């Protein structure tokens, strides 16, 4: 009988996995082109057969900003640390929109691509990751409006925006991806996610300082409040772009740690559920 060449790099061993699955991010790296293609496909298809096309990426945060401006800016007059309300809320709506769009798209990514999951092998992480990253394009389009608002209100960010903004953008991606991994993997088994998600995002919006300023929270609750990593993201965006708030402090580091915990636990949960995806979906 002929022998298999052991330890050949192209040899694949298929056996039942037990215990915790390895994260195996190397496999994901091999399939990086697929991530790019999936993002490209999402973007190509997203605004097909719509009249306004990519303008939707701007309209959504802009309309929300106008509504918020009327209710919170004019009627309720929430304090904004002396920043004009439109730019104050729009700056927060950008990462918030990135986050909610990522959750909406990514939580459905596995079930929407059911035929891929049941027919072909590829690292399943490709699907939620590409859904989350595709949101960056909408973010970039909507960001153009923010630049316009900054000129209009003559807000000049500090020079360190060049690294603080990417940092907080990365943080928002980490939170979005972490939560998305949890939701997409749960959604394979429990479609309740589809129904629960609107409530989840709505509730999350209330506990995140998008429409109001985090400074309205009393000091003794600040630390509890910062357990919400999106609070850290939104405050960070405002600090980086508008110079409001105190900048990096203990609350931010709590947010960073929580974000990483969500991401790593999401990865572990996803990888462990992955072995049953094709059978359960």
């Amino acid at each position, binding site marked *: 009988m002929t022998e298999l060449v052991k330890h050949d790099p192209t040899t694949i061993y298929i056996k039942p996995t037990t215990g915790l699955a390895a994260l195996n991010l190397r496999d994901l790296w091999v399939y990086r082109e697929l991530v790019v293609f999936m993002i490209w496909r999402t973007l190509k298809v997203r605004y097909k057969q719509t009249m306004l096309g990519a303008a939707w990426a701007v309209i959504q945060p802009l309309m929300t900003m106008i509504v918020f401006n009327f209710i919170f800016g004019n009627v309720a007059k929430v304090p904004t640390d002396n920043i004009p309300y439109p730019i104050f809320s729009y700056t927060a709506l950008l990462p918030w929109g990135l986050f909610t769009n990522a959750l909406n798209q990514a939580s459905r990514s596995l079930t929407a691509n059911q035929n891929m999951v049941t027919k072909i092998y590829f690292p399943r992480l490709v699907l939620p990751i590409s859904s989350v990253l595709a949101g960056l394009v909408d973010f970039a389009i909507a960001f153009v409006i923010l630049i316009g608002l900054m000129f209009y209100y003559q807000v000049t960010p500090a020079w360190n925006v060049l690294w603080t903004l990417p940092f907080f953008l990365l943080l928002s991606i980490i939170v979005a991806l972490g939560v998305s991994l949890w939701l997409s993997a749960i959604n394979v088994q429990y479609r309740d996610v589809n129904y629960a998600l609107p409530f989840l995002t709505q509730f999350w919006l209330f506990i995140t300082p998008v429409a109001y300023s985090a400074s309205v929270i009393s000091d003794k609750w600040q630390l509890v409040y910062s357990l919400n990593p999106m609070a850290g993201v939104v405050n960070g965006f405002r600090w980086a772009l508008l110079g409001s708030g105190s900048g990096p402090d203990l609350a931010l580091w709590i947010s960073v740690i929580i974000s990483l915990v969500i991401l790593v636990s999401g990865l572990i949960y996803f990888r462990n559920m992955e072995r049953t995806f094709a*059978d359960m979906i």
Partner: protein
Amino acid sequence: MTTAIRVENLGKRYKIGTAPTKFQYKMLRDVIVDTATAPVRWARALALANKQPLLDDQPNYIWALKDVSFDLEEGKVLGIVGRNGAGKSTLLKVLSRVTEPTVGTVTVRGRVGSLLEVGTGFHPELTGRENIYMNGAILGMKRAEIDSKFDEIVAFSEVEQFIDTPVKRYSSGMYLRLAFAVAAHLEPEILVVDEVLAVGDAEFQKKCIGKMGDVAQQGRTVLFVSHNMSAILRLTEEAIVLDKGQLIMRGPTQQAVDFYLSSGQAQAGERIWDSDEAPVNAAPFRPIAMRLKDNKGKVIDTVRSIEPVTVEMEYRLEAPLTGLRVGFYLSTMRGEYIITSFDTDDVTKYEKFGARDSGHYISRCTLPADLFNEGRYSLGVNASSFGVRRYFQDEQALAFNVDISGAPGTQWAEPRQGPIRPRLDWSIEKVE
């Protein structure tokens, strides 16, 4: 020679109800019920733990694959035959890493490309060109690789003029040709093919079979599943036969195909479905048996072409059904269809039996004498409500032989072309 695939004691277990049916997922409600009853199940599991191993057959589990072991050398083409539900597709899914085995190991040397279903990842809004790149990437090709094969893929698919049109405007034939073209130009060391040749027009099928032959000649390993015995015979030298998840035979293709055709299926012109054999999702339709009988009511497996023969389907309806039709496919062993017929094809029959109460039924039909030519034929069964649901289907429930002694033209000892051999009424007239 090196081994490309080694399969050792492979088993895959499904929980009944979660396995093959799509769109079946748990709701939190079920989990609450599960959790509430968990202590009882744990107690039972503990009680049983000493008596039987954990993975042993439990009532709500089925083994789609069990104790399957084989080796395959590099550059060989292996056919896999077996009836529906024998585990063929599960085996391919495990080999292509779509699903994990429950027990056992597989060692695969090289990249595995699967044609489990062509066109996976095709998006209707994208153009043909865009879909080629997308689909190529999903199948594991690198961008540069797709670039270099792009023209070849387009030429093979014969859709040049429409390459920049969204595929939602394609005809189903064009769509399929494009999808197969991408998959066929994938160059993995191991290619896994499941029944892709069952679709497309005859000419394209020929082209596909040709392409598969090329792949094999380039020294790549191919695993080929098909119900089309002539394709299996043409493309493979060796085949394995699966039955109820187990490998029951391996040998030269001709022998394996003969074994498959004559085992179980052809026994005495009768196919009986045990209650555990009928798919769960067929309910409320429950097949019992399909039989072939001569005009004296005796079950036969060899039909005399000069005598009529009766095809009988026995089944039970566990609930009333409307719009039901039960019928058969008659085909040659090469997979060419000759007749498709249903018990309620006749409008008056449909009015009377379209809606059927629950109960035990037999649908029976007599095929006239002087119909078949010499050879071997296959009968399949289908029970469905048109446009609503297909309850049960077994494309190859029965096989039978036809003996033509006494048929027209048998005074000349020559084979006659064509699957049918009717007694035609010739008239010969002398005009001059």
